[in-house]
């Protein structure tokens, strides 16, 4: 098996594993990055979302082979950045976290959305989050959190 190389959370890495392995499993099993969650395994829930070249991707439907040469950021890599801090502060303020299983994926989705559209309307936020399921919050507090992050974190995106 040849090795596949990519940049993971800012560091070049290389891995030998079957090219059709799910990126989700590679991240969780080979790199021990457990912040990326599995909610459905079929591209419906977004719990497994990561950033690939700064766009949101469901890692459960992403074969390792495609990762070659890409820049991949998981919640662990995003946590601690000023943008993460702005989103996390807003999520706390607005009450966007309940059971938390969707939360890392939601934060990745928020980053992807704000990166593309730093001043999204409520409608744009809802559409932007529509690939991420949350069963606990009913979304409103998450939507408000993203609005708040956009406002209070102005200039970060």
């Amino acid at each position, binding site marked *: 098996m040849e090795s596949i190389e990519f940049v993971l959370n800012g560091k070049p890495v290389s891995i030998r594993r079957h090219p059709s392995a799910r990126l989700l499993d590679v991240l969780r099993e080979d790199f021990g990055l*457990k912040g990326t969650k599995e*909610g459905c395994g079929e591209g419906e829930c977004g*719990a497994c979302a990561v950033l690939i070249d700064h766009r949101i991707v469901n890692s459960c439907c992403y074969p390792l082979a495609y990762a070659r040469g890409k820049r991949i950021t998981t919640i*662990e890599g995003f946590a601690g950045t000023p943008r993460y801090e702005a989103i*996390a502060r807003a999520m706390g303020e607005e009450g966007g*976290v309940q*059971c938390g299983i969707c939360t890392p994926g939601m934060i990745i989705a928020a980053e992807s959305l704000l990166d593309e559209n730093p001043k999204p309307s409520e409608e744009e936020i809802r559409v932007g989050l*529509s690939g991420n399921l949350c069963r606990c919050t*009913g979304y409103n507090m998450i939507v408000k959190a993203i609005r708040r992050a956009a406002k209070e974190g102005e200039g970060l995106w």
Partner: protein
Amino acid sequence: MPDISKAVPKLDEEEKMSGRAVYVDDIDIPGMYFARTVRSTVAKGRIVKIDVPKLPKDYHIIDHTDIPAKNVVKMIFDDWPVFAEEKVTHIGDPIMLVVGKDRAVIDDICENIAIEYAEEEPVFDFRDSAVDYRFEKGDAKKAFERTARHIEYTYRTGYQEQAYIEPQGFVAYREQGRITLIGSIQCPYYVKNAVLDTLGCGEDDVRVKQAVVGGAFGGKEEYPSVMACQLAVAVKKLNVPIKLVFGREEDMEVTTKRHPSTITLRAAIAEDNTVAALDAHIKLDGGAYLGLSNVVLSRSMLAVTAAYTIENLNVAGDVYLTNTVPNGAFRGFGAPQMIYAIEMFMHHIAKDLGEDVLEFRLKHLAKQGDMTATSGHFHEPIIMPALIERAMEMSDYRRKASTYAKDESNHGIGMSWFFHGCGFTGSGEADHIKAEVKLEKDIEDKVHIHVAAVDMGQGSKTTLAKVVAETLGIPLADVVIDNPDTDFVPDSGPTVASRTAMVVGGLLARAGQRLKSEWVSGETVVVIEKYKQPDHIRWDDEKFHGDAYPAYSWGVNVVEVEVDPHTYEVRVENVTSAYDGGKALDERIVLGQADGGIAQGVAYGYLEVMEHDKGKLKQRNLTDYMIPTAVDTAPTRTYLFDNPYALGPFGAKGFGELTLVGGAPALALAVEMAIGRKVTKIPVTPEVIMELMKHGKH
């Protein structure tokens, strides 16, 4: 004293956001094996023959022959086997586990196991009643005889799937002869007691720990005991650590759902056009095993008149066994079906009588001191008129209702009124649960909370810590609360029935008071507090007579919809709610519960469809079974009233389930107004609406 309702940062939010929180699937143990369950593919039959291929080294089969003691998962009814022996009762009935190191090899073995069945005719309709409860209030028979006008409707509800985003799972291992299970669970002691029975071992031989739980909603109340017993049998035999985590499809196919129901209501109408008597028959589909369905049924029956007082009642309930997936606990626990039915019924009676619906409902609204359905009393103040007024004002209900009822705009607005009984039914807390909590102050004057209550997202770690901090007058940072571990926490009861804030929180507040008086700085002080039934609460379990709950929370939901005139798709435009949950222990947490509960409740009314075809569920994953996305969910406005309950901590009553139970009727009533047809079945899908549109206006 600062107001306890003022929001504080949740104690566990940072670890959840950053991805550091450890859920069960995140746990790896060196040398860990995996397990997968082999299940029945027929709805009913006998196992004639099982052919297992030759197993590679270190791969194992675990089945009923490995069970050291009882092949039963202890719930309320002990009818659920750990593994099927000869009989299988539904598609998905567990027969054995395949255990080994490599999941691909396990899958391969599972695929090559051939099971031959002698199939039998399965039962899917309401034929075999396994639980049959009845109670009366006043004299319904006489009231029916004395009145000329009787109105009858039948209401139907479908399955609802909890659809927590984290599927169920456990990791278990053996350590010095003891078995430890770590799981995604609501009730550590339910799991522990079930495993003790199955293994037939002593108290100290089993330890249960809660991993961070990724949503539960009742789905992780009794079902985890099934997995835990299976896994414990495997660990006991093989003596290796094993992980058993479901994928989404398996989780959806085999775990418990909300009971589908058929509810027939008949009213005797007095001369002044009020309801003189109500005759109710509630039928629940229990699925293949009863588990705790009888308790679900009793909560349905106790909610029979919901927010209304009706003098004479004749209430019957049955749980039917069918050869389908077993149904069980789901937020609301039998109440959503009943509250939907009675709310629709009150509207339908008023319409049939030509009465103003609002006036008609107000005439029947329950008041403090009224006799409850079970001839107990509403002891506490009922502030429903204020809730109703506030919700109508915030939603502009009066104007919209009169406009939409007449115009052809395809808009509708619906309003539900409801209560939720807080805690276990009747004497359940005192007789069965016997909750116990422990506070331990260490030499650094930090206070540790020891309870079995699980934070599954509802924020109980934070609210319980606030109760203790406020009671003691110490900073929140000096209170420590970890996920329960049965080696350290007493049995404060299961995390169910909206009892955590009120009952466990209430015990902690009392323990806090005692700790305060026994406080010696720099020394260890331990305080244990046990549940005592309030003196004025009397309940007869056999007869369903007396005070069914120590307290009730109340609520009003107003839902506005638009129904597409061509596709009949329902779009929820906004939701307005007013609640009396006593006193919010943290306003932001309570509002979060309100948002999540109403989203589930409303979706139950129109969006969430699950059906079976000859016992096989048609919806197998989150693509087929739709739960609301951010786009489907409407903006909410929620108003929280303070109506402190003397025996709740800082006045708090139950809240988690209250926010779900009124969603479906409010939605269905809004659709009814938009389409000008009576709705008697939920979910009201475009197909259901199309069917209704074929018939004339009501």
